[in-house]
């Protein structure tokens, strides 16, 4: 599966994104989204925080706003790779 991480906001305010391939089963992907999905409007009181959106590039309806801190540690390697590629 090709997944895309989009970052917007931050004090610099520049929108950046990165993609990476990762072997997810549908269940794994659904689980990841379920644990990391951000509650609606939960962070608008935070000013200059980063906003993150995760997307399965093969499914254009899969864009999900996520809480990056909720991503399980088992995906650290994948997310490190995505962070490093953000442009």
């Amino acid at each position, binding site marked *: 599966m090709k997944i895309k991480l*989009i970052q*917007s*906001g*931050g*004090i*610099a*305010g*520049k*929108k*950046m994104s990165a993609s990476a391939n990762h072997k997810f089963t549908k269940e794994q992907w659904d689980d990841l989204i379920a*644990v990391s999905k*951000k*509650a609606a409007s*939960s*962070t*608008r*009181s*935070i*000013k*200059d*925080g*980063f*906003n*993150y*959106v995760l997307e399965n590039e093969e499914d254009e309806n899969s*864009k999900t*706003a996520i*809480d*990056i*801190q*909720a*991503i*399980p*540690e088992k995906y*650290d390697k994948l*997310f*490190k790779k995505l*962070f490093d590629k953000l*442009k």
Partner: protein
Amino acid sequence: MCTNERYPFHCIMPPYMSDKLDQVLGIDTETKDKQMRSKRMELATMKPATRSFTLAGAPVNKKLYREVYDAHESPMDIGELIWKEGQKKLPALKDAKNVISAAGHVWNFYKKLFNRNSIDNKGMAILQNIRYREKKIMPYFNAMWDGEQMFYGTGKSKFTNSFTSDLDIIGHELTHGVIDFEAALNYENQSGALNESFSDVFGILIKQWVNKTSARKSDWLIGKNILIGKNALRSMKAPGTAYKNDPIFGDDPQPAVMADFEHMPNTEDDDYGGVHYNSGISNHAFYITAFEINGNAWEKAGAIWYAALQDKQLLKKNANFKAAANATLKKARALFGQGSLAEKAVNKGWKETGVI
């Protein structure tokens, strides 16, 4: 000995020991992090007045009161109090020294120029967390205000310095707090861009005031020290030119005039309608105003913008650029007179940016 009075459980023992204890007690890190995040969201979504009460729980400070926490390059739940007001010996960390000094300047700026007692005008403690990360695996290239305190990333790389390196950035972030207690501009679309812009305005004014730089001598750059080289994060004088071919950020996308307004969706992946993009327009209006008035920008232009920020009738939570223009024009007249140079300068600023 634990010195974290706010969150004593954060530092009662070193992180590796508390992690071990959590394992023994069956508390997993994710659950613990979730609880912390949930608490933080709860605080962040409270109304300012409630937050102030929550925060304080302490007598109103009549003088400057600061605390600095070290997050040890981790998410905030292991922050450790490393300095508080009254301690003569400053911490060894440069980031700590930077934020202590900058918060002092910010507090003094608001007190001396506008008789404002801290962020909430009721003596709120200025709490700052340095060396913060959202995820342990990644340096945090950012500074933010979470509704009750500040978080700064070290964010050091071959292209960036620490996010504590600029007084205007620290002034910007703490001004987000001031805005929360005044116009409380919604953080989306044009009101969000105004929220960003007021923060830039007072961020640069604090820097100019401390360095005694007049409007015409200032470079009007925000975050000049963060990006290594000639780039800065934003230019109020010429939005859209602060950086070019930057290895991290690419090219500066800020518009300077309404004709170039970025129509972006009000979503997480588009910065809630491009609040950091379109702030370039109102930033530029302020720059033109200050340049036209001449002299020190904090004296007249700053006073006008501060008065507008305090007027919740003229500047409602969902205010757009036109409402900000109207508010600042009215305040210019009230403070300096109908037909005054200040009023003409404000008018010119909003006209040249195409807002009115």
